[in-house]
């Protein structure tokens, strides 16, 4: 039997409609793009602004208050960009660690059986989540750290921690020649211990009998480095912060800007992480907790061995996107003058060169690259940890 032929006109065919719509969209996008480019070329030639990325090689001529890679006023704009990027990564990395710690404590605390702990954690989350991060950043910097006394009247805990309006000072470890042996000894000790631990785990899984290895931990992790320390006659020195004239010298100085931004970012993001952790723990089936109790595991052990490992599967993906938004949020540094990528490059360099298009595209490209790398790592992790048959 012959199939009845379609009786509608060709322009009602969804395939043709689709192609026509896409062609139209392409033409529209191209037209708008060309129009914008035309305007930009006109505007640039009228303003006599150079275009292209040649400015990256020009001398910057400005100082940066926190420099972790070689940089002087004679360095290029390109080098200034790298300095800013390193500063962004530093503040993000420190804040990620701190916010994760606080976030897990608060998130687990919200589910605590202790009424006071649960309420306190709820108040923490509901307060900090509902106040703009920028307000918290300026509060910690202008409202707290800048109002600390000057260097001469610093708040000091002996020479261990010194607080003043320039920043926080802590003792710094100076690595003398020969210190590499101690570091190596520590690394070897840790590596051997973890190998031993893995062996014990495998043996326990195979035979049910767990070899006693607790004695190896102090021997390998403390004993070996101590031996190296003895052989090299303690190749370390501590540099203590000391008042010299009008400022502190020696020790490790953490600028007020870095400190303020880190505090604000950490405690703000921790509120979100706490919610993620809580949601993850709640998502673990009730039976798991009951089974852990039935096996006689105490609450702490049940949390560590049964609940958190299962919750991690739910926690990790939103946690990664929280880390990503923390990194993007670190751009609020510009409000308090911490020299991150945006403040240095899209701020100072942009003001000096006026090359808005190049600088802003480059800045956006760097942030996009960071987020692409993070999501690629995330996908790898997900593939490794997805439930079998579901992943």
């Amino acid at each position, binding site marked *: 039997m012959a199939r009845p032929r379609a009786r509608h006109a060709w322009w009602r065919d969804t395939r043709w409609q689709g192609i026509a719509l896409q062609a139209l*969209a392409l033409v529209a996008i191209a037209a708008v793009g060309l129009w914008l480019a035309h305007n930009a070329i006109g505007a640039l030639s009228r303003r006599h602004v150079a275009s292209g990325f040649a400015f990256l090689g020009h001398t910057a001529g400005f100082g940066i208050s926190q420099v972790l890679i070689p940089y002087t006023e004679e360095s290029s704009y390109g080098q200034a960009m790298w300095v800013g990027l390193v500063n962004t990564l530093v503040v993000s990395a420190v804040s990620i660690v701190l916010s994760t710690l606080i976030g897990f404590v608060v998130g687990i605390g919200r589910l605590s*059986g202790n009424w006071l*702990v649960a309420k306190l954690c709820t108040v923490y989350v509901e307060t900090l989540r509902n106040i703009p991060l*920028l307000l918290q950043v300026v509060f910690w910097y202008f409202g707290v750290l800048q109002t600390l006394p000057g260097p001469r009247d610093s708040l000091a805990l002996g020479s261990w921690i010194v607080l003043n309006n320039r920043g926080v000072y802590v003792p710094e470890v100076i690595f003398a020649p020969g210190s590499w042996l101690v570091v190596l000894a520590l690394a070897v000790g840790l590596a051997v211990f973890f190998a031993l631990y893995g062996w014990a785990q495998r043996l326990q899984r195979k035979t049910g009998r767990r070899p006693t290895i607790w004695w190896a931990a102090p021997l390998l992790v403390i004993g070996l480095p101590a031996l190296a320390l003895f052989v090299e006659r303690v190749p370390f020195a501590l540099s203590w912060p000391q008042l010299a004239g009008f400022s502190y010298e020696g020790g490790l100085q953490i600028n007020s800007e870095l400190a303020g931004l880190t505090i604000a970012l950490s405690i703000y993001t921790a509120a979100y992480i706490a919610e993620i952790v809580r949601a993850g723990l709640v998502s673990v089936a009730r039976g798991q907790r009951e089974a852990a109790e039935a096996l006689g595991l105490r609450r702490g052990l049940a949390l560590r061995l049964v609940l958190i490992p299962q919750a991690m599967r739910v926690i990790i993906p939103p946690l990664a996107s929280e880390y990503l938004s923390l990194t993007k949020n670190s*751009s609020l540094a510009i409000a308090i003058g911490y020299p991150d990528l945006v403040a240095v490059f899209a701020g100072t360099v942009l003001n000096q060169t006026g090359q808005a298009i190049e600088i802003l595209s480059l800045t956006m490209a760097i942030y996009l690259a960071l987020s692409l790398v993070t999501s690629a790592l995330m996908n790898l992790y997900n593939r490794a940890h997805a439930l079998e048959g579901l992943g």
Partner: protein
Amino acid sequence: MIAFRAPPILHVGPVGWLRANLFSSVFNSVLTLLILALLAWTIPPLLNWAFFSATWAGTTREACANATGACWPYITQRMGQILYGFYDFDQRWRPDVVYTLGAAGLAWLMIPRIPHKGWAGAAMLTVYPLASYVLLTGGWFGLPVVSTERWGGLLLTLVVAAVGIVASLPLGVILALGRRSTLPVVRIFCVVFIEVWRGVPMITVLFIASSMLPLFLPEGLEFDKLARALIAIALFNAAYMAEVVRAGLQALPRGQYEGAGALGLGYWRATTFVILPQAFKIVLPGIVNNMISMFKDTSLVSIIGFFDLLGVIQTGSSDLDWAGPNTAVTGYLFAAAIYWAFCFSMSRYSAHLETQLAEGDRR
């Protein structure tokens, strides 16, 4: 004879409650005592700072010069700026009318007992923005023009938040639909658009609006600075909105799409009458969450030179008339309280909606 035994442990009443909730184990007891100590150590000085040794009366900085607590006269003296920015003094009734109309409209929408929600929604989305625009900018009906440079304070914060929310929702829906389209050109364009905006910090987007956008406009076309920022914020938030809406579209069971197709509905009719209403119901809490972060993010416009709520507080505390550590902190706390009140009520309302909407699914 049966020996006397100790009475059973009390499980009811205040003692039982204390035992169950605060002192259930040694660890919990220690934790409780530690927290009580922490609270006793921090709360009294805070209350002391904010209330008991705070300055309440006075009109100038001198009133707060020797105070060891909060400086409330700073807030009361600056209230006009905090609420309206530099909006012309004799024209401040106009923002007041906008505030009142907005509050009335929201009450109509949110209180379940008032009927005709459809009309209210339509009015809030069409008449109200238009009326607000005419009232705030002026130039019609004999109202003097107030340039947007004079807007500020809470007024500017609310304008930016409202425009961002209202404009980003339809844009976000279009982007979300585009991202799930079967047409490759449309899909790729939407994916790139969404991922680029979501991958960069908002502050770079605001920089684009303030220093890059003018380059891309034809010669002679001058755009209001606030309008440029609003466009950037709307586009930025649309990308986030799109991802929320997409979650709803993906959560809908396949049968809904197939059912709509089987009834002979075309793409647009199926989307408007079957898919979107259900998707919205699923993602309403997500949309409100998005609105909350949008509201908080409005504070970033202070970085590109607007005097929104945070901007006014910032400039106020560096003003020589009032400068002092206590004034700055008082200002920040006051601003924080305002932001908190808005965001917290939104999140409570969202939680309330969530339970209301789940009512129909409960068996």
